């Protein structure tokens, strides 16, 4: 069924209050100052009107519960329902961050135990749960790197090495930390080599940021040697945990030489993406970085859990309070559900699914890197380009056929990238459906490219003019 729904302020009669206003039980007071506000031109509506408005809008969205969401590097896995239920328990939602620790023992247990589990999963020694997202976890890590070097009297390290295939957040975070960025090129196989890293290493290098497996879905097999080179040169190694879903129970990054790593709880640990957030980006560190972790941190004492700020060298606080508690809670529930063996199974099946897709599509789409894929596989539009069909057209063709496209045009180092990450949750039917659709599109590209150029036609909106949105920005309505 197709229906429209106007913007809220286009509805008539927006003067209702659809909220159960409490009785004023005390004598009414009025502001005495010149600062009192007059009327506010925001329309209000009854509860049923609002129920319909947002229900209608929601049906124009596609979610993980709709079908496969194979966004590479985003790990759009299933969001367990029990975790949502747990996150609504009164004791959790009614806890105020400034209440005494003795009133927050359940909350603090969740934080402490989540931290312990993440340390075990990464093989690290310390943790902060405060970063509100992966990008903030990166920032926290690099600020710690900076402070670590300075605490040793080393002030000349002003540059961070970043592979050319890295997420944009890596250079942006480095820059926000006041570092210069030096790009390291990966080789023709799509990985970093010891030689390249060695040639970049000198006394100006504060550290390197490595995503492993890289954004091409390939394991950085020289990681140990690279960590050694950086450490020998006095630098530190940051691990971008965006792709951790490939490695649970398979390797521990702490054993490999990583000094600090963020994890995206909304990727690897199943918390919902919510149409853009909230996420959470805890950071695990090796012992030499513990003194620099953000405060406060939860500790376990003989008299229970406590929030502790006694960390003189800390980089400080990065969140209004203690990070996105309810997101952390859901991740903890997921870890408990899966257990150690379940988490390993997650990575195994995620890798199996990605390779199954790779094997079934490699004759239809160009595979720019031949090395083994882990949890995601990278194709390009090179073959389809010859018929005038680009990655964008392939993506829109998938929408027309009822499934969400993969990540497109990322990583930037590959022209026309299509990065597919199925995750461990997809059934064989679901994987085959994706494969069949992409095969059909590959055929169409040859035979009837115009059908793809015009797609999609059956979604709520046909192809949206994003150029127009940027050329003449309309960022709000006027009420």
């Amino acid at each position, binding site marked *: 069924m197709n229906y429209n729904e106007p913007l809220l302020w286009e509805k008539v009669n927006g003067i209702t209050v*659809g*909220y159960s*206003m409490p009785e004023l039980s005390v004598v009414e*007071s*009025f*502001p005495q100052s010149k600062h009192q*506000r007059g009327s*506010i031109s925001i329309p*209000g509506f009854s509860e049923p009107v609002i*129920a319909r*408005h947002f229900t209608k*809008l*929601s*049906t*124009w*969205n596609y*979610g993980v519960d709709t079908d496969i969401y194979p966004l590479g590097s985003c790990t759009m896995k299933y969001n367990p329902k029990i975790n949502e239920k*747990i996150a609504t328990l009164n004791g959790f939602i*009614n*806890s105020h*961050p*400034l209440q005494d620790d003795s009133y*927050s023992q*359940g909350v603090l247990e969740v934080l402490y135990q989540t931290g312990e589990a993440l340390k075990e999963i990464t093989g690290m020694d310390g943790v902060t749960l405060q970063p*509100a997202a992966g990008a*903030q976890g990166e920032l926290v890590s690099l600020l710690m790197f*900076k402070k670590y070097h300075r605490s040793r009297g080393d002030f000349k390290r002003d540059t961070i090495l970043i592979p050319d295939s890295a997420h*944009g957040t890596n*250079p942006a975070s480095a820059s926000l930390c006041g570092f210069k960025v030096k790009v390291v090129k990966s080789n023709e196989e799509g990985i970093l080599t010891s030689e390249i890293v060695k040639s970049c290493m000198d006394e100006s290098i504060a550290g390197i940021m490595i995503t492993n497996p890289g954004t091409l879905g390939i394991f950085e097999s020289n990681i*140990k040697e690279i960590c050694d080179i950086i450490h020998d040169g006095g630098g530190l190694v940051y691990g971008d945990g965006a792709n951790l879903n490939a490695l649970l129970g398979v*390797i*521990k990054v702490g054993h490999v030489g990583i000094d600090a790593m963020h994890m995206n709880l909304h990727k690897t640990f199943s918390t919902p*993406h*919510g149409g853009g*957030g909230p996420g959470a980006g805890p950071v695990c560190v090796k012992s030499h970085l513990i003194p620099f972790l953000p405060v406060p941190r939860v500790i376990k004492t003989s008299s229970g859990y406590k929030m502790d700020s006694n960390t003189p060298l800390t980089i400080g*606080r990065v969140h*209004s*309070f203690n990070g*996105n508690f309810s*997101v952390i809670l859901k991740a903890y529930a997921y870890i408990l559900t899966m257990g150690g063996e379940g988490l*390993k*199974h997650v990575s195994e*099946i995620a*890798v199996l699914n990605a*390779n199954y897709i790779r*094997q079934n599509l490699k004759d239809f789409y160009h595979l720019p890197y031949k090395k083994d894929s882990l949890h995601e596989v990278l194709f390009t539009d090179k073959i389809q380009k010859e018929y005038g069909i680009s990655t964008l057209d392939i993506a829109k063709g998938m929408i027309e056929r009822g499934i*969400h496209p993969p990540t497109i045009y990322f990583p930037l180092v590959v022209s026309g990238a299509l990065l597919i990450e199925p995750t*461990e949750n997809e059934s*064989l039917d679901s994987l085959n459906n994706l494969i069949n659709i992409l095969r059909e599109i590959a055929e169409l590209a040859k035979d009837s490219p115009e059908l793809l150029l015009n797609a999609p036609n059956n979604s709520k*909106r*046909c*192809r*949206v*003019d994003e150029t127009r*949105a*940027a050329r003449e*920005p309309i*960022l*709000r*309505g006027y009420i």
Partner: protein
Amino acid sequence: MRYLSHSSNEIEYMLGIIGKKSIDELFDSIPKSLQLEKGLNLPKPISEWELESYFNKISKDDGLQKSYLGGGIYNHFIPSIIPYLTSRSEFLTSYTPYQPEISQGTLQTQFEFQTYISTYLGMDYSNSSMYDGATSFVEGVLLSVRVNKSKKVAVSMGINPHYLDVLKTYSQGADLEIIYLELNKDGKTDLDSIENISELASISIQSPNYFGVIEDQEKVKPIIGSNCTLFISVFTEILSFGLFQPPGFYNADLACGEAQSFGLSQNYGGPCLGIFGFKKDFLRAVPGRLVGQTIDKNGNRSFSLTLATREQHIRREKATSNICSNQGLCVVSATIYMSLLGGEGLKRLASINFSNSEYLKKGLINLGCSLKYESETFNEFLVKFPKTFDMNLFKKYKIIPGYKIDEYYLITVTEVLTKIDMDEFLLIVREGV
């Protein structure tokens, strides 16, 4: 493993297609020397029922007290329809709306949010949200540093101390020179000293400030005069603008703060909802996501993310911020909240909050408590209990009487507290004195 879908036969079949003998072979690209020999030292998997009972058990004693805490996180009623609608999987389990054709629900909601927030704050525009009030404030300061090419910034000591902490953390990267503006005896920021400071990138004032005091923000722009210094108006209690003038009224360049009050639970302080309102002059300098209106191929009104060239995934180290997400689901909550209340409802609710807190404030004064600041406040005020009063009495009644700041308590009152609650509070003080 109820979240995994393959049978062992299917796994065998898939391995056969791939041409691998075992799952282990799929990991051959990882040097054997790096691979774990032992499994993770974590507990065994547990059932849904065990899980629920564990969390029921550990959470049952938390958050039971009658709380007068605020200071950045506020306890307000949340209409049931908000968690109901936000638990719809299309809102909950979708990604960032990069494919607009199948994301119009998220996009229209965020466009409505941008419209409601900018209208409510009296600003030209709002982005589609930041992590929380603290990072929104810091991003505002960093914007001022970028556009004015000066690292000198002035911030009021009336800003939430956690927000100032976060600024200090970020300033280690940005190398800022932070000038702290003291509060006068009336609890309002001392603005006189600013006139002698040159090349200031921005002045940040919070109102109502950390101590609940309504600041005289109309004085800020005249002091700045023709300088290009930005005025950043900060807030932690967005409901206050139901009753008091919003940042735009004072010609603020940026309005940065927190909207947890609009439909989000306290949740031990997160997730929050960072608000970033701005004047149109800064459109290309702002951090975070923006949703814009456009049309589709058939000319139908559509929405999409826009001006993405500011962001990290395109501009990398030259981006306006490293932020890569927003608080999408919290935006849905706040938009529903605002559209249920409307302007009239927000005014009324703010008035109830104000009246409640004035009632308790006056009651406490009558019992011999003293205020730190006499100025007008919204919802929160700083009070000293008589020396003879034993604060431990509150514990007996399961009341958290506010947040202790030196010899004072920051007491916060919202609509969830009734006259009966406050009379009990007053009675305890009367008896204790």
